[in-house]
């Protein structure tokens, strides 16, 4: 009689990576819907396109690296990277910029480092940062004017044509600076009240953006409820950002106010969906808290004193650098020991 021979434990209750990734994708839906409602079809098209490119690039690389293609594609991680890029890129990003971003994410940042689990940097953010520094104009001028849909233009076809043709002439009429950018540039010469008259801020905090951020927040809380992400990274992320802006920016006539920091730009998407990428984040709970806080602080620093309007990508990448260091200093104290054993002999952080 042949029984199954297996080492303990025999029971398992793991959510396989593929299912975790599927949940992550589902949780981004509210945000995607909000983006589509307020900014038009751009992100939706981006998302579909980026996922397709990401999966194709991953498959090609797996084949080149002689790995089981189907086995790894099914873990859905490439699709998530594509999805995150599609959500982060501006609505009228020319298709070739998206391609460059996705390819550098999947091929360079992930597969060349050894594939799933071996990449030290968040692939999506590597792709994003790369195109941001390479094509600054295409990346910063293509943000759709919020709430376009209510005004009835441009339609799906028009958006698609704009993205695919590389013909960006029409774009000028529909785009404007992002609220963070606008605020930062105008506040040096204007008062807060004057700055806020710009249409990008609308009636509330940042027209359209606030809803998109709220939707990502909702999706992120859902992931937390499903215990797919722990609270540590988002809490550290938002906590760091809040602390910094309370410490430095309480005067709205000088600095971007907290409400804008939280609800404009890629804050919630970054806090719940990007910084929480397990592969490139710190591992222990304590380490995750430090990691998230570091990102929050860096975002504030870059947004306030740096050259880029949004800073999620750079902050995440910078903290990715710090992960080995954080992990080195945040091991738990093992049961029955007096103190934690830090690091590992031979590769001291």
């Amino acid at each position, binding site marked *: 009689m042949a*029984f199954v021979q297996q080492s303990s434990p025999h029971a398992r209750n793991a959510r396989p990576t593929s299912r975790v990734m599927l949940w992550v994708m589902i949780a981004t839906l509210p945000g995607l819907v909000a983006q589509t409602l307020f900014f038009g079809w751009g992100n939706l098209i981006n998302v579909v396109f980026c996922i397709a490119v990401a999966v194709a690039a991953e498959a090609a690389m797996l084949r080149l690296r002689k790995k089981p293609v189907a*086995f790894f594609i099914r873990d859905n991680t490439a699709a998530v990277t594509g999805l995150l890029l599609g959500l982060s890129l501006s609505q009228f990003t020319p298709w070739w910029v998206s391609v460059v971003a996705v390819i550098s994410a999947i091929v360079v940042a992930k597969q060349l480092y050894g*594939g799933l689990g071996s990449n030290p940097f968040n692939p999506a953010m590597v792709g994003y940062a790369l195109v941001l520094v390479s094509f600054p104009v295409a990346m910063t001028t293509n943000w759709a004017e919020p709430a376009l849909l209510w005004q009835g233009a441009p339609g799906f076809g028009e958006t698609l044509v704009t993205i695919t043709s590389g013909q960006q002439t029409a774009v000028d009429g529909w785009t404007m600076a992002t609220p963070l950018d606008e605020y930062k540039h105008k506040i040096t010469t204007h008062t807060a009240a004057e700055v806020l008259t710009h249409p990008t801020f609308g009636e509330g905090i940042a027209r359209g953006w606030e809803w998109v951020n709220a939707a990502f927040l909702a999706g992120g809380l859902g992931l937390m409820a499903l215990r797919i992400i722990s609270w540590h990274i988002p809490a550290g992320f938002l906590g760091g950002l809040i602390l910094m802006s309370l410490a430095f920016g309480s005067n709205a006539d000088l600095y971007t106010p907290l409400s804008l920091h939280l609800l404009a730009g890629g804050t919630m998407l970054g806090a719940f969906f990007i910084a929480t990428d397990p592969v490139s984040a710190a*591992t222990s709970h304590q380490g995750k808290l430090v990691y998230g806080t570091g990102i929050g602080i860096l975002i504030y620093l870059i947004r306030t004193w740096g050259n880029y309007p949004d800073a999620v990508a750079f902050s995440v990448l910078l903290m990715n650098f710090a992960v080995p260091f954080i992990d080195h200093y945040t091991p738990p104290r093992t*049961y029955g020991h007096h103190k934690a054993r830090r690091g*590992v002999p*031979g590769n*001291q952080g």
Partner: protein
Amino acid sequence: MTQLWDFRGGVHPAEHKDLSTARPIRCAGIPERLVLPLQQHIGEPAEAIVKVGDRVLKGQKIADIGTGVGVPVHAPTSGVIESIADYPVPHPSGMSDRCITLKPDGEDQWCPRHPISDYRALERDQVLQIIREAGISGMGGAGFPTNIKLRPPRDRKVSTLILNGAECEPYITADDMTMREKADQVIAGLKIMAWILRPERCVIGIEDNKPQAIAALRIATEGTQTEIAVIPTKYPSGGEKQLIRILTGMEVPSGGIPADIGVMCQNIGTAVAVANAVLEGTPLIARVVTITGEAVREPGNVEALLGTPIEYLLQQAGVQQEKLSRLVLGGPMMGYTLTTEAVPVIKTTNCVIAATARELPTPPPEQPCIRCGECAAACPMDLLPQQLFWYAKATEFEKAEHLNLFDCIECGACSYVCPSSIPLVQYYRFAKGEIRVQRAEQLKADRARERFEARRARLEREQEEKELRRKERAKAAAEAEARKKAEAEQVAADGEAVDERSAKAALVEQALARKKAKTEASRPQPAADSAEDKPDLEALEKQLSQAQSKLETMQGMLDEAKAQQADNVDKLERAVAKNLDRVKRAEDALAETRDKLAARPTESQSNP
């Protein structure tokens, strides 16, 4: 209300306990054949004290320990010894071991028993001896001989005696059912152990998913000092270290035993066995076993004679062979799979799961670790399972050890939650095994080196002694020579004293001539000497200082490596030894050359 502490980590696997709690404990009866392994616990195997063909009575001792840690084995029923040979025994490796096979005669005839109603009148040692003679070893995990465990080191007073009724593994209900049905025996056993140990506190820890057992024990302990601590259901709260933490807030020091912090844990089944042994005079010949899983039609708990083949129990429970895919001995978290149903029930057998493929499916193939940290969050020992896995896989065992690999209790919580389906525990077992092998080899190598060094020291000593003797001989010879010469001169002086003046003149002349000759002879010599010896000396000195500085560097590197527990300590140690050697040789050579030079006439040395 007992104060409870929590431990970090832990998981909540599906319990599947009600499968086997639906009916009371049944008696499995006497099978056609009983197979009794001589080793049923850690320690030494017992030796058979019966021969093939002997008729034995129920409860008769059939194997005992001569020396070493262990307890005897008894005949579970009357019958004839059929063979003493190797049979498959319950072990993760599926190995065979020496067993006594008993063919029951169906009469179930007891040997004389000596129940003791008032054990308090005895010496404590006598009671411990009764427990030993009854063959009792821990009936939970590894099964350590109970009489030895009940005698902690003199300087370790046990202040808290814990009865472990947590039974946190899914499926297993043997302790639960025992507590429900034999609460009085459980408490009687606890009282005996408490009488032996005189602890300040007795506490029974039970998970809150066993309300009936809790109720039964409450009644049984009414009016006593024994606490019933109802603890939250969480795996592995029944792990000894976790239970101690929950009930006392203390942690067993790494590498230590509970007695180090004044605590002792005993199993429910062990308590019953102790009560039976002392109060009834019955040795340990049967135990409660949970037979469960979806491949049996009538899961439940049975009281089975030790030696009963698992096959027999499965058949009684209505096993459906076509559905049976995996046979697990123990719980699904820490138990191991059996290769055959032919293995017998032993003293530590608490559960057999006959699982269907749907129930315990084969895990999906291993994926890369995504560093999600789930494993660390689940680890009740606060280890870093992911890093341990990484180093175990890369065979960097020193690093795994540095991360406290040996504190891993192999509870499986980490594997249970890993989304990448990595069999983490398997890697830890592999690493632990490898490290143990390496340690044994290291020990052997150390011994060999010590022997080698002792031999070298002896040879050196002999050499030195020889040299000393040679020098002494040379000295003696020189002295004799000088004496002779002096005597001769004396004689000459005596003879020539007649003409003292001429003699004196002659002597002066002689001396002058000698001096002249010597100066002439030695004048070119010093130049040659210094040309030959001086650079030699310098070179040697340089060599020595080089060797010394190299040694220093090596020593420094070694110290650092040791402080960091790096993996090149061995290599560095060898390098240091080699350099030490080199320095010694250089020193010897230098000393020798210096001696040689010193032996020369002074002029040669003072000359440049």
